[in-house]
């Protein structure tokens, strides 16, 4: 579940960043920044629910 959210949010954040840059849209870049922070918090709090001893 967590890795799936991580994947989907990452794709959306990168889209917002790239498209926001292309269109010179500050709101899209702002959304992208917020999404990246949310993703990082998700990573930090859940570790994507990967058990101890497992590696990527």
């Amino acid at each position, binding site marked *: 579940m967590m890795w799936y959210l991580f994947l989907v949010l990452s794709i959306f954040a990168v889209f917002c960043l790239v498209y926001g840059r292309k269109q010179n849209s500050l709101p899209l870049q702002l959304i992208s920044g917020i999404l990246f922070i949310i993703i990082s918090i998700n990573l930090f709090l*859940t570790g994507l629910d990967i058990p101890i001893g497992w590696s*990527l």
Partner: protein
Amino acid sequence: MNTKNRYILVMIGALLILTLPNICAVPICWDRVICESSGVVSNGSIIYIDYTSPYLAKEEYCTLDGLNAEVSANRVIEIVIHQGQYQGGDSDIKRVLVDNEFVQSGGNIAFKLSKDTSPTTIICNDIFPSAGPGSGYEVIRSLKYWSASYDQQWFANSGGLPDYSYTQFKYALDENSQNTIDFVDTNISKSYNNYPATMGGNWLIFTLAIFLFIIGLLLLIQTVIGYMQRR
């Protein structure tokens, strides 16, 4: 509607389509347990999944591995399980206390959960934060297996379990006993540190988390600066 707006709407729609079904498909075992005083303690792990009726009456046997350490360290904790809106009824809250003696007897804290009765929230508290000091509690001492079924009965159905689990649970069920004791007031403000079970060796994930956090922060700063420059 211009092309730009349509493009954004399509992307947002795609995001919702990808995300919503997975949010609705709530896992039966919990993702993590939150202790009020110490944050995330553990991931619940699935020890057995009963697929006798796939996707209809799926049942999981879940343990709270990390919670055992919590109990060992803090002697007594309260686990609060919220089961919300089952069959349109009121949400149900079940409180159990688990003590160190229970953990030292060698058993995991195991729950059998079904799809319909899956708890919406599981919270473990330091002792007496919710019911107040002096209240009587039901302490599980030798029971290793508790069912969060709708009628809150102790569950004794072992059908479908693999041999090793059946033995384990049968042993646990055979020696069911519940003791009700009254606790004296304890220091409820004590604090202790726990680390999420997943933090063990996943340094790569946490490096990535810090990296993404810095990128996000830089983007925010850059956006604010860009906005001020435009003005």
